[in-house]
Each structure stands twice: as structure tokens, then as C-alpha cells.
């Protein structure tokens, strides 16, 4: 664990479990509550960014481990969702960099986005292609824009990217979509 290398792992867990280390037990409990409240939403977000449920689950574990470490170090987390979203975005980008030279087809796409009364395969395929050629940061921005309907300013505060970077990447995404016949409203 970060910052507590002089303890072995097992005694830490026992102390927390038997209440001899109430702060540690509190952190564990808070992570459990946060997971029950936000786990599903963060998992779905990671699926969209990484395009694979298995990889999303791997990264989700890292996200909650970082929250646990943060809380055990005495950090505060009043609003869990922005903390988790930023953490998930950062870790998804890092995870993707690990596999930089391995381009894999997408297994998961934002299903909510593609649920519609008609059968507009042209549009769905265009968005799918843009997801496929985009990196994790672009996918995160595209998901926030299309699925969560956030504005650039909200995406910036939610994902922890600068507004300038969002605008630059958004322009690139819009160009890619427009080339494939999908036109987004300006926000």
C-alpha cells in the first residue's frame, strides 16, 4: 500500500475488521457504500471508453483501489462521482497506453446511445467507426457528450480535462462524425 509500507497486509485487514483501527474500517465501509451507489455507472462509462467489459472491470478495480488508498491516507471525498469519473478517465487513458500497439475491435458500444425506434445503421455504424478510431480521451469526451449530454464546460469539470483540450478534441470528433454523415448540435 502507498505510504504504509511498514505494515503487512494481513494485520491491516484484521485490525479493520475487529474495529481496532476504526479509521481504516470507516474507509473500507465508505468504499463499499460508494461502490453500491456508483459502481454500475462508472462501469458503464468505462465500457464505453475502453470498448470491452473485461478491461472495464480491471480498470474499475484500480479506480476503487485508488479511492480506498485516498481514504486510508485520511483524504476526504464528499462528492464521490466526480472523483470516480476523473480517476476512471485517468486510469482508462493509462490502461489504453499500455496496449498502444494492440488495436482490437470494439466489443461494447454505448447501447443506450444506439437504442432508437428506427434502424439507422448508417448513423450507428458512423458513430461506431468514430469510436473505433478514437483514443480513450476522445471516447471519454464523446461518451460524455452523446450519452450524458454534457456541455464542454461540464465535461471539463467532470473528466478533469482542460476546456481548451476539450474544445480541440471536440472539433476533431465533430469533423470525424461529419465526414461520416453525423451532425451534432453545437453546445
Amino acid at each position, binding site marked *: 500500500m502507498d505510504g504504509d509500507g511498514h505494515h503487512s497486509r494481513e494485520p491491516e485487514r484484521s485490525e479493520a475488521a475487529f474495529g481496532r483501527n476504526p479509521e481504516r474500517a470507516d474507509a473500507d465501509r465508505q468504499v463499499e457504500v460508494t461502490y453500491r451507489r456508483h459502481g454500475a455507472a462508472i462501469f458503464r462509462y468505462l465500457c464505453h471508453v475502453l470498448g470491452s467489459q473485461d478491461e472495464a472491470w480491471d480498470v474499475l478495480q484500480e479506480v476503487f483501489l485508488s479511492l480506498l488508498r485516498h481514504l486510508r491516507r485520511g483524504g476526504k471525498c464528499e462528492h464521490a462521482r466526480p472523483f470516480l469519473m476523473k480517476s476512471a478517465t485517468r486510469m482508462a487513458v493509462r490502461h489504453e497506453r499500455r496496449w498502444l500497439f494492440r488495436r482490437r475491435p470494439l466489443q461494447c458500444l454505448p447501447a443506450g446511445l444506439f437504442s432508437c425506434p428506427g434502424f439507422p445503421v448508417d448513423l450507428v455504424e458512423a458513430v461506431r467507426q468514430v469510436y473505433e478510431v478514437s483514443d480513450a480521451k476522445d471516447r471519454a469526451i464523446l461518451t460524455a457528450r452523446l450519452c*450524458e449530454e454534457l456541455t464542454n464546460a461540464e465535461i471539463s469539470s467532470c473528466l478533469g480535462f482542460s476546456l481548451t483540450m476539450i474544445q480541440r478534441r471536440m472539433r476533431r470528433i465533430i469533423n470525424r462524425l461529419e465526414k461520416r454523415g453525423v451532425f451534432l448540435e453545437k453546445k
Partner: protein
Amino acid sequence: MNQDFLERDPGTCPRRIDLEDALSEEVEGEQRMRILRHVEACPTCNRLWQNLESERREFLARHPFAKLEEGMERLTQKSERRRMVLLRLIPAGAAAFAIILGAWLAFPGSPGVRTKGSVALSIYLMRGNDIRPAQADEVFAPRDRIQFLVSSGNHRYLLLVSVDESGRVFNYTPGTASFSVPITPGERRPLPESVELDESREDERIFALFSNEPLSFSEIKILVEGALSELKQHGKTVKDLEKLSGPWPQASVLLRKH
């Protein structure tokens, strides 16, 4: 977009992220009460709320907290091990890196290069309101709607035919044309028209035949029927009929129905 999103009024209805915040008690007090009151009054938001609740229930059933704890434990142990190994093996790692770099420079790969003229057939599936690319092991159901995408390097015509287990041959070419239709070369180009599957539970093999001259459906039909009956004599099924005998480039997919 999601049907619920299409139906809801963006002027008055909260966004999905606001509903999620209310559901996870991220927002409290008057703001949360306002969202809850709206959800009670608005059937579209109510449905979306219930979807979010059921999605959360399903997620927690599939990934309980105990599983996350196990994963976090494993990650912690892994990072400890990695740190120890790195400290001990930095010199060996540097040597290995030099060897790998040398090998990579000596044998450069070319990922993502497509063979000129290669052909492919893939399917999009619409089930309920959900649209997605069909998986390799997809099982199709009656009333599913499918639409085909073709990739072709330089061929000008396409004929799409299928044969089911009982030997019936269908013409899936756009417009049910009796001859191949012209296509534009390109990657994963959607064909016009979608097909709604009937109640038949027999597997179906679909062939996309690419050519530079139009092919006749009636001639290909005889060829397909002959190929299947020959296979059946050897106790095989449409699953095994992966290729037709002919000079044209072709791609095939199996519509599994059970």
C-alpha cells in the same frame, strides 16, 4: 439516441446524469426532491429511473462487492510483487529491452494493413430498440431485424443469397434483384434495406458473391442447392457449407437460430 431520451422534453426533464446523481444520493435536499417529484409525474423519466435502478441491481448481482475486494487485494499484491521484481531485475530488464528493441527494428510489422481486394460480410442486428453489430456466436430470434454491411476492394457487383437447413434458397440482394447489384468499393458499407427474420428456427448460411460482371440469381440458386445436397449426402449441414465453388471472391456468415 435512447428512445426515452427522444421522448423526454429537454426543457423540463432532467438529464440522465442528473437522475443518476439523484439515484445515488449525490445530490440532496430540495434539488433531489424536485427530481423525485418530476420522476413520479413523468412516465418517460420514471421508465428511465427504473432502467437505471435495474441496471444497478444487475451490475451488483454480477459483480458483488466481495468480488471487487478480491480484485483490489490481487492488485495490491501484484503491485508489491512488481516493485520487488523491478528493483532486483533492472539490469536484466535493460538488457532485455535492448534485445527486444533490436528485434523490433530488424522485423518491423505492419498492423492495420488490409489486403487489396479483400472482401467481407458483416451484420447489424436490431432487437427491440437496441441496435448493435452481431457477434460471431450470435443467436438470432424471430422478428429480429438485420442489415448487411459489405467490404470490397475493387469489385463492382454484389449478389447476396442464403440457404437454410431444408435447402430453401433466398435472395437477400437489395431490391430482391434477379441479378447482382452495383456496389461502391469500401470498408463496411451498409447495404440499403433491412430484413426482418421470420419464425423459422433453421440455421441459414448467407453468401455475398462479389464480381465485376453481374451474376444471375437463378444460376447461383441451382449451384447453392447442388452444393447443399452434396454436403447432406455426407451427413453435413449448412454450418459446413462455408464456400461455394466458383471463380468469384465471396464471404459468408451463418445465421444461427438455436
